């Protein structure tokens, strides 16, 4: 197990015991949603244990912990079934927008809504960063702003009561809003079938002059998103690390049992080399994650989450391979991990954009002109290529 600081070990133990007790046995069934019932029992027990209020203020019924508390919790849960970790992540990302916005304004009304029973978790576009998709538009109205348009791929969109969504003002600048998904003018699609995290289902939301509550100042969307992304990046990394560890655990157990060519397959060097590759990546990832929690700059975790996305995809692809045909079947956990890793890689948005953002941030911090912001016109003068 990852050697987390003492103050985080309780969350690690909680995550490990919960995963073992509540998630392992019915993992394959839970993963069949929407062709199997939603895991209401698991959600109820997760709510009772306060998984969705860890970063919520005490005044509103939460435990007001730092997002770091989510890191060991999500790692251990992801080791068994990352769908629940995706729910925790999604809710935490939405809360983080609220928390950041609350620093500059009084949000008693908003947080008051969240302290009600069954209100958490919140829905959020966990796999999309700002600028990646077209935002709905905001119009001022007497009863508060309204938004019109579509927001796709909202994690927990069909499950949660409230969603934190971004919308664009007349000048194109983004801001965040709290939307009541049961409110008038709001349409929720059927669950979107996705490659993984099936028990953390997404939906597309359509707004038709739906009244929403603004979060933060006008045009503060990018700032709020960046801040949320910085704080949630270690959690995204933890989800990926948990998937990798679970993948290694299952592969390691299998290769000691399965025989091919007259010997257990771990005794084939080609197999043990693959395991060694996985182990090296896991050890390095674990060390980097702990470093980022121990006071390295927060930006490190953003970079780590990007790289871990690639490692987790490679690790889980190999994890299926090590189990051969069995790894491809839902009777084992590996194929789910392969699929979940692709979802987890997209937490906080398109990896290519996140890489550019992280790189640009470093350039800005060093006082240099950001290369990505230089434009080079095409000879035609009409279109342009973004360098």
């Amino acid at each position, binding site marked *: 197990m990852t050697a987390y600081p003492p103050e985080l070990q309780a969350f690690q133990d909680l995550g490990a015991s919960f995963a073992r007790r509540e998630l392992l046995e019915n993992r394959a069934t839970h993963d069949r949603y929407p062709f199997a019932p939603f895991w209401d029992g698991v959600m109820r027990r997760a709510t009772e244990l306060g998984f969705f209020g860890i970063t919520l203020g005490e005044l509103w019924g939460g435990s007001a912990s730092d997002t770091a508390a989510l890191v060991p919790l999500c790692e251990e849960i992801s080791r068994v079934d990352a769908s629940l970790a995706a729910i925790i992540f999604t809710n935490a990302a939405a809360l983080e927008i609220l928390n950041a916005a609350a620093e500059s304004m009084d949000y008693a009304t908003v947080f008051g809504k969240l302290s009600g029973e069954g209100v958490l978790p919140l829905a959020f576009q966990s796999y*999309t960063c700002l600028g990646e998709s077209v935002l709905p538009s905001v119009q001022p109205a007497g009863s508060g702003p309204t938004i019109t348009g579509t927001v796709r791929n909202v994690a927990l969109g069909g499950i949660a009561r409230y969603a934190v969504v971004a919308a664009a003002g007349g000048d194109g600048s983004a801001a965040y809003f709290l939307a009541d998904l049961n409110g008038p003018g709001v349409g929720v699609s059927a669950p979107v*079938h996705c490659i993984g995290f099936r028990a953390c289902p997404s939906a597309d939301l359509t707004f038709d002059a739906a009244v929403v509550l603004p979060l933060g100042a006008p045009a503060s969307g990018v700032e709020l998103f960046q801040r949320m992304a910085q704080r949630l990046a270690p959690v995204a990394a933890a989800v990926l690390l948990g998937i990798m560890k679970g993948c290694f655990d299952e592969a390691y157990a299998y290769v000691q049992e399965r025989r091919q*060519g007259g010997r257990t397959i771990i005794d084939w060097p*080609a197999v043990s080399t693959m395991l060694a590759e996985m182990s090296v990546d896991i050890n390095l990832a674990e060390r980097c994650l702990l470093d980022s929690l121990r006071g390295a700059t927060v930006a490190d975790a953003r970079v780590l989450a990007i790289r871990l996305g690639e490692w987790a995809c490679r690790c889980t692809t190999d994890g299926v391979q090590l189990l051969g045909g069995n790894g491809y079947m839902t009777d084992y956990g590996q194929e789910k991990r392969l699929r979940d890793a692709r979802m987890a890689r997209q937490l906080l948005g398109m990896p*290519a954009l996140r890489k550019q953002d992280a790189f640009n941030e470093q350039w800005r911090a060093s006082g240099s002109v950001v290369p990505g912001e230089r434009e080079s016109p095409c000879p035609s003068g009409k279109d342009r290529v973004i360098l």
Partner: protein
Amino acid sequence: MQLTRRERREYLQREPRIETVMNSLQGLGTLPRAILYDVATAVALARKFNDRVVRPVYRDLDLRVLQDHEYLPHDFIRTANEWGLFSLWIPKLFGGGGLDLLSLYPFLEEIASVCVGLANVIGVHYLGIGTLSASWNVRLMDVIFRAVSRASRQQEACLISLAITEPLAGTDVEEPELLKRARVGTIATRVDGGYVINGRKVFISNGHVSTWHMVIAYGDRRNPLESSVIAAVKTGTAGFSFGTKEKKMGQRACVASELIFEDCFVPDALIGAAPNEFTSTVKSQQQIGQNIIDFVVSSSRAGVAAFATGAARGAYETALEFARRTHVRGELLINHQWAQIMLADMYTNANTARALYLESAYANALKGMFKPLYQWAIHAFTRRMPAWYFTVFCSPLLRLPAVTKRVKQHAFESYRDDDGRIASGWASIAKFSCSDLAMRNCDMAIELMGAEGLRHDGAAEKYLRDAKLLQIYEGTNQLNRLNLLKNMVVWNMPEARVFE
């Protein structure tokens, strides 16, 4: 020119030799030109079939199987049968459509560029056909292939599956060196008039929807390579039943079945190959067993490579279309240079993959199981004579046991080990390279498309789920790398040991 004839000959003896690594160039001089026409016909047919049949159903079918695990794609199979796709590549000699065998690979690529699972439904049927062909039992081939061809003119299809994988022996049964040490469990016991088969086969593609099953069983569990039996078992035979349907991550349209044999009697008339069925002074039983495995996997791995090329291409085309219509940060994605680089890489991967599987296909035509069919006289004869001629005059001859015995003897004894080595090596290169490239393209497509790439209706995620199996079946990519090394790299290095 500062090169004597002797020097030319000597320099060409160095590795890599032209006859080993330039199959397509060799084919230019020796293979019939009609191949290109048939390839073009097959590609056009596949594109029409995709538009009319595959695209309208493939996504729903994928979800349907996830929802209802018992669902089988009978409607699709019936339609494909009506289009003649299950007999089109059976030689006219056996009552089939007689389209050139090399054209099957580009056809499969086209179908797989939309849905690998449905491509497998068609492709794996030809794996069954290939397995029976590898036995060179022309009498049984004539019986079963003509039944398949007749069915293509009727309502219900007659499909053939290959049953080789076992619960305790997956990769082992794909490689002669490993088969010697495998823990096989499907045993064929010799009895009067035939064999009795007991055991289980798993992960058998098309199992539940096939009429015939080419079952690989073993007479001696301690010596499987030299005791292999190829038995044709028909659905409904006493002692043969279907077990579970596997729950797969992808390629859901193509059922993966468990086949159960409990004292299943197979008469001699349905035995495609058996140990010591003819006496050879040229080849040992082990060499013949190795030849059969090489024949099958050299053609089937090129087929997997064609599937993989389709997946690589489909993922690329999906990402390209997405990039053309999606704005990211205020600009069309296709105008972001980082996206352009990714798309260029994906295009390259798809075309690299195609070049590789075609090299393997050429190797099969020049040096593999297809070789006899491409000898000029045979090719011209089978192409020009009308179908009725083969039915009236050839079929009765092919049914004579003596003819099968003579054909087998000639086919195995005249087959050069060097040819088998090269065909097998190229099949492995194509199989693992193309499937790795497919996985790379699928991952890149999802990455490029962001959240939209994760959605089932975005199509990219399905390519990834489907493509992963291509790295596993027909021998894992690890096994294929070692097989390549054995056949192409260290084949003349006595100090090198592979599979040890």
